[in-house]
């Protein structure tokens, strides 16, 4: 029997039991849709994080105390403000170094209040990171040196506190202390539904006094070019560990952050897809089950076909094609639903979702494979039926 005949007879048989076919497919539909959606969300999250990390600027090295390990609490910082100057001398360019000490604080204007990430930094931030301003100016060297109480607001902070009013020149109260607004950042957007524009930059000197700390959290160093990153990394660590004996420091690059985050999210995506894949297997078992029922119901038909000259492989092909058509059609529907749901999630919710084309190819391949795998047993059973016995069945 030609494959085309097997297909048309499979379609006839599946149409004859339309409801049962659809219900059988449902397992595969749900499984495939779940795989596509979860992979889309995983890839979306990964892309979002990458965009965020890459958006920081280029050729950055982030120096932090302790050993950087995901899942462990950050080490107590030994870094001082003077270490920024120290590293500036090391790289031979003070403008390539910026610091941060940050804390979540209440920021108020009149009776409007937000909870923002208050970041104590230096005037070099615009030179190290990509943070353009929408209005006003950034912190100056004098602001930092003289511990001026001036602030640059994230676009969301500005909007929440001032609405349509021009914020530059006005006062905000941060943790009870008044600061004058000198600038507003351009908008970055949000990640996972969390605004990244809800921040305030103040001179690091003012921030340390405000938070009551001596330390700084991290130092960012901008390497002159891509090739300089590696050597610079080791020089920075060596120099700091020389300076603070017995302490450890880490200098991580964007590539490393991307690599780590990427592999974590990649693993997460695979785990999610595997969990969804279980439902696909359950769907496959359902297909197998229904095909066995179908073989039993159609025992006489099988006997007849054999009497008319169907070979074992003709009957096997007929039932195998039927199972594969079931799972493939189910897979296609599932892919459609998955893509639709992922696109809807991306558009209408805060969850970033990105259709991974490989996941569609995979889902399709797996649907076909599930049909073959779970169809082969019932189909073999059909193929090996004894025609005399089959014809006699009621």
């Amino acid at each position, binding site marked *: *029997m*030609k494959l085309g*005949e097997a297909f048309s007879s499979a379609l*006839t048989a599946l149409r*004859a039991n339309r409801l049962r076919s659809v219900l059988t497919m449902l397992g595969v539909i749900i499984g495939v849709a779940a795989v596509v959606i979860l992979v889309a969300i995983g890839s979306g999250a990964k892309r979002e994080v990458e965009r965020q990390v890459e958006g920081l600027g280029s050729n950055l090295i982030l120096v932090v105390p302790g050993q950087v390990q995901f899942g462990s609490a950050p080490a107590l910082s030994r870094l001082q403000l003077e270490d920024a100057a120290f590293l500036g001398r090391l790289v031979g360019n003070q403008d390539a170094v910026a610091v941060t000490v940050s804390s979540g604080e209440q920021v108020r204007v009149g009776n409007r209040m937000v909870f923002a990430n208050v970041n104590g930094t230096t005037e070099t931030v615009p030179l190290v990171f990509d943070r353009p301003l929408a209005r006003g100016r950034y912190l100056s060297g004098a602001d930092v040196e003289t511990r001026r109480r001036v602030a640059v607001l994230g676009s969301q902070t500005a909007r929440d506190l001032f609405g349509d009013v021009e914020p530059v020149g006005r006062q905000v109260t941060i943790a009870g202390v008044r600061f004058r607004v000198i600038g507003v950042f351009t908008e970055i957007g949000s990640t996972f539904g969390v605004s990244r524009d809800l921040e305030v930059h103040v001179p690091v000197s003012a921030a340390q006094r405000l938070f009551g700390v001596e330390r700084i959290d991290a130092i960012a160093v901008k390497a002159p070019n891509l090739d300089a990153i590696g050597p610079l990394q080791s020089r920075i660590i060596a120099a700091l560990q020389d300076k603070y004996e017995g302490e450890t420091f880490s200098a991580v690059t964007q590539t490393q952050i991307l690599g780590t985050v990427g592999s974590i999210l990649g693993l997460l995506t695979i785990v999610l897809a595997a969990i969804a894949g279980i439902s696909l297997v359950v769907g496959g078992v359902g297909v197998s089950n229904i095909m066995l029922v179908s073989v039993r119901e159609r025992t*006489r*038909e099988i*006997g*007849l*076909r*054999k*009497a*008319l*000259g*169907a*070979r*074992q*492989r*003709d009957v096997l092909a007929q039932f195998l094609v039927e199972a594969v058509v079931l799972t493939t059609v189910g897979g296609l529907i599932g892919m459609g639903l998955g893509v639709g749901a992922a696109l809807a999630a991306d558009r209408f919710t805060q969850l970033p979702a990105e259709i991974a084309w490989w996941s569609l190819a995979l889902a399709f391949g797996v649907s076909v494979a599930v049909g073959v795998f779970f169809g082969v047993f019932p189909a073999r059973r059909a193929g090996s039926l*004894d*025609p*005399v016995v089959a*014809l006699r069945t009621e």
Partner: protein
Amino acid sequence: MSPLEGAQRAASQGPPEASSQVDPQASPPAAVEAVDVRRSYRVGSGQVDALRGVSVSIRPGDYVALIGPSGSGKSTLMHLLGLLDRPTSGQVLVAGRDTRTLDDDGLAELRNRTIGFVFQAFQLLARTTAVDNVALPLIYRGAGRRERRDRAVAALEAVGLGHRLDHRPAQLSGGEQQRVAIARALVGEPSLLLADEPTGNLDSVTGAEVMATLERLNRERGVAVMLVTHDRDVAARAGRQIRMRDGLVVDPATAAPVAWGPDS
């Protein structure tokens, strides 16, 4: 004469020159021939001997009725002659060819080309039109759609159902259904048609219609027909009767073609 002697004769001698219809020079082999076939079934710890050494020979153009009481082994013999089943011992030859060497797929192919079946219960596919039911055997020959349809239509016309092509079995009378089944058995132009109680599910009038169709096809096309029947009148119209009892042919001489004559 013992069944074994009959078998040896049928196997070794072939028809003598006495044959009236067949050119003695050509002496074509039997359409199908069973030589001392036995068929036992294992049931529980025991054994049922459904056939205990049967030899029959059906020549091209024969019209044979297989008769005998219930349980005598008629259906079992039909299954063996139709290559649906294999004998426990003995051999079945189709057009002179030993079938013991064939595997299941080989049997299926030979069956498809040389044998047509008509069953008591029609065995039509319920969701399928008459013409598609009839075309079914041709699918397993790899025939194209056009050819299948043309031949199926021709076969249905040959059994007088040219006006029922797209009817489903449920939309046909019992007699019509059995004629569709006959058309299906014929569509592949087999040399032998095996019918196990083809009128068993039909009343006498439609049964007679079906029998007339079979007789006409045998006469006009020369297709050999072997049918099992419990109906004396039907059996009487056959060119030859083979009677069975307890897994044996009662008068083995009848198992050979009539043209030999009982005493040859």
